[in-house]
């Protein structure tokens, strides 16, 4: 088995007295796209925030490329190549596209150069001087991903990238994630949209009420999407 890039074991997360995540264990190997599926309020966002140490209080172990990170501050975790695209995209309304793009400092070798950015995100260059507030949801999502690639991240935590977007845009985002996977990136994808996640996922975890309920591989879900879908629909 190849090396585990993200390796979470027995993670518990708390907001105040609320025990949100309970003994969560999951992993993603190099170059894998692993999807974490679950309904609203299941604890998906809490999990991603826990990995980065922003927000909830945590207990348990989170290893990134073998380094235990539960005691590291977020800015040190970022230096391991990890990056996070929040559910609400995190585009700064007062900053232009260019300013948003250059906000994350280049942390490591191997970040996307300007040409690659232009090629992968053809729309962004035209909008370079536009304020973040004027971008469409799809453009915001693209920018949110582009800026962390520029900085050199190769382990991506994507929080519901397809949420609230039109089908045509969702298709573009899916193609983008497929290309990132082809570049060898490791991706932990949080989704409720199975038809989106199905395109690129190697494995699936299903979370409900902060507990991992089940685990599937690509073939199982392609064979019968119903095994996962029943956890998602009400």
């Amino acid at each position, binding site marked *: 088995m190849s090396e585990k890039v993200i390796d979470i074991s027995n993670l518990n997360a708390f907001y105040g007295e609320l025990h949100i995540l309970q003994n969560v264990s999951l992993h993603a190997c190099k170059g894998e796209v692993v999807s974490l599926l679950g309904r609203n309020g299941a604890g998906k966002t809490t999990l991603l925030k826990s990995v980065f140490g922003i927000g909830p209080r945590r207990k348990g172990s989170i290893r990134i490329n073998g380094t235990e990170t539960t005691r590291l501050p977020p800015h040190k975790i970022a230096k391991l190549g990890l990056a*996070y695209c929040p559910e609400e995209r995190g585009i700064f309304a007062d*900053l232009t596209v260019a300013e948003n793009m250059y906000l*994350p400092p280049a942390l490591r070798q191997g970040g996307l150069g300007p040409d690659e950015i232009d090629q992968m995100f053809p729309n962004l260059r035209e909008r370079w001087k536009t304020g973040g507030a004027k971008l469409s949801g799809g453009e915001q999502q693209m920018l949110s991903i582009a800026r962390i690639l520029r900085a050199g991240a190769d382990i991506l935590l994507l929080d519901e990238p397809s949420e609230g977007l039109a089908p045509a845009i969702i298709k573009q985002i899916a193609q983008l994630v497929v290309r990132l996977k082809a570049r060898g990136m490791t991706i932990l994808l949080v989704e409720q949209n199975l038809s989106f996640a199905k395109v690129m996922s190697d494995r699936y975890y299903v979370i409900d009420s902060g507990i991992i309920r089940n685990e599937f591989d690509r073939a199982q879900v392609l064979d019968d999407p119903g095994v996962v879908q029943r956890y998602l629909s009400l």
Partner: protein
Amino acid sequence: MEIFGVPLNLLLSQVMLGLINGSFYAMLSLGLCIIFGMLDIVNFAHGAMYMMGAFFTWMLGHYLGIGYWPSLILAPLLVGVIAIVIERVLVRHLYDLHHIYGLLLTFGLVLVIVGIFRGFYSVSGKPYPIPEALTGVTNIGFMYMPTYRLWVLGASIVVCFGTWLLIERTRLGATLRAAIERPDLVATFGINVPRMITLTFAFGSALAALSGVLAAPIYPVNPLMGESIIVVVFAVVVIGGLGSIIGSIIGGFVLGTLEGLTKVYYPEASHISIFIVMMIVLLVTRSGIAGK
């Protein structure tokens, strides 16, 4: 020529003098505003930083024979270092608590800092000479203006505008503004947000200290000098719109001028004019002129 019975010359010279006071208001409220923006703390100790800037200038000269020009750099640096220690040791622990704790802590700091200086130097004013190169007066057309005061005005405009540029037009400033909005997200970009907060506190405090250095040759240097000016500066920040950089800069100059004009027409009210404006502005806008 007269305006409302006051000769134009006299009026203009009061405007100029008001602008000098305004220079101090602008620099001080700018620092206060930056600290408020990044730390979300109403820093009562800001006046003490100003006082220390002036006092260190005097001490550097008195004990070490170091003159005005080196002090212009050294005093703000010293105060910056003190600010770093204060932020790391004390202020840092309050970020998750209600505003009132920051207010109480920094208020306590004022008592301690001012108390220390009073203990050593009592409250009598220490004279500080105007640097050689800036003595005398300069003809500015309608009046002879003390050269040193012109320097204060010019230096303040440059410092305020420079700070505005830094925050609004540079990548560092963009990072700072982003960190104010989403500290958690900016930290995931690999930026050391806690360090940025510390340095912001130090920078704002150093700005206050720089005003203190500029003040040393024209206001008596004494432990209480910060307290008398900071109350006015708080009013300026409120009028400019809490957290608005440009609001606090322009507010500082405009209100200094207004105060100067009040001195001409109704001297008795000059000290309260700014507070009257504050009340009116708050009643009308609820959040200051440039506030959100």
